[in-house]
């Protein structure tokens, strides 16, 4: 496999921002889909009885929530701009290969419950390459911070995508 110089110019670039509302139906459906049948994911009464501010978000829901509560008219300018790594993915895929989800990390700074409206800002955290046997693995790491309506940081998620060829 021809090894070309890795284009790391996107490191530090901002990802398009977004506003995401944590919606009740998707939260309850998601909890069931990851086999968690706790009543607190279905009932606000049960959630408050457990000492929670509202129906909580399942731990891995942040990876999916942008597919639900990201309403077009609420989005900030530039939300639909191309991601800054688009060119890099195009370059990598010219040699074929596979795009894999390598790692996912969630840091929960504060509770998030149904009804919360979160503002996301993100950036490309790292781009690096490793050899693995006769394969070349390119790691593209992005980080997203979510703030509540008071501007407090509530959640960070870090996604590592691997291109393997």
């Amino acid at each position, binding site marked *: 496999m021809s090894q070309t110089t890795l284009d790391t110019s996107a490191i530090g670039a901002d990802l398009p921002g977004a506003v995401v509302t944590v919606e009740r139906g*998707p939260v309850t*459906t*998601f909890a*069931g*889909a*990851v*086999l*968690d049948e*706790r009543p*607190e994911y279905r009932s606000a009464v049960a959630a408050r009885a*457990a*000492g*929670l501010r509202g129906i*909580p978000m*399942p*731990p*891995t829901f942040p*990876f*999916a929530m942008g*597919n*639900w509560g990201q309403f077009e008219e609420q989005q900030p300018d530039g939300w639909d701009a191309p991601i800054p790594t688009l060119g890099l993915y195009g370059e990598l895929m010219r040699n074929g290969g596979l795009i*894999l*989800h*390598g*790692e*996912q*990390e*969630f*840091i*929960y*700074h504060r*509770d998030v419950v149904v009804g919360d409206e979160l503002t996301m800002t993100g950036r490309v955290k790292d781009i690096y390459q490793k050899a693995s046997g006769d394969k070349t693995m390119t790691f593209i790491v992005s980080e997203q911070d979510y703030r509540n309506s008071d501007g407090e940081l509530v959640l960070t998620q*870090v996604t590592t995508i691997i291109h393997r060829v």
Partner: protein
Amino acid sequence: MSDDELYFDDVEVGGTAPVRTHTLTRTDLVKYAGASGDYNPMHTDEVAAKDAGLPSVFGHGMFSAGMLASALTDYVGLGRLTRYKVRFTKQTWPGDVLSSAITVTGKRTEGDRYYIDLDCQLVNDKGGAVVVGEATADLASRGGEK
């Protein structure tokens, strides 16, 4: 808080969490696709998966991560996780018997916070880890009010 609350005081390093076990079905994958919005046909369309040279559809990595998070929540309680990180190591297939394996690796206090660190894995019935991860939880202490 409920009677089954996990207290920092009662956790020992090396202790393990109750095991969750589940046999993966194609219905699980359809449900997860709908719930997550990940409609990659390799997870839900058997015809497309076979056309692509695969033996069948295979599981979403984030389904495995989600099931493992449910097992973590079983142990530490709702709203207790402060961090959860997973690495995807193997594909899952319908019929796989998936089991959680969660071990306490550390206990520490920071100010008035009581943290435990955990190693967590989801393993298949051939003994292979499909997801390997780590987590931290902020627990109540019998001495404190949190």
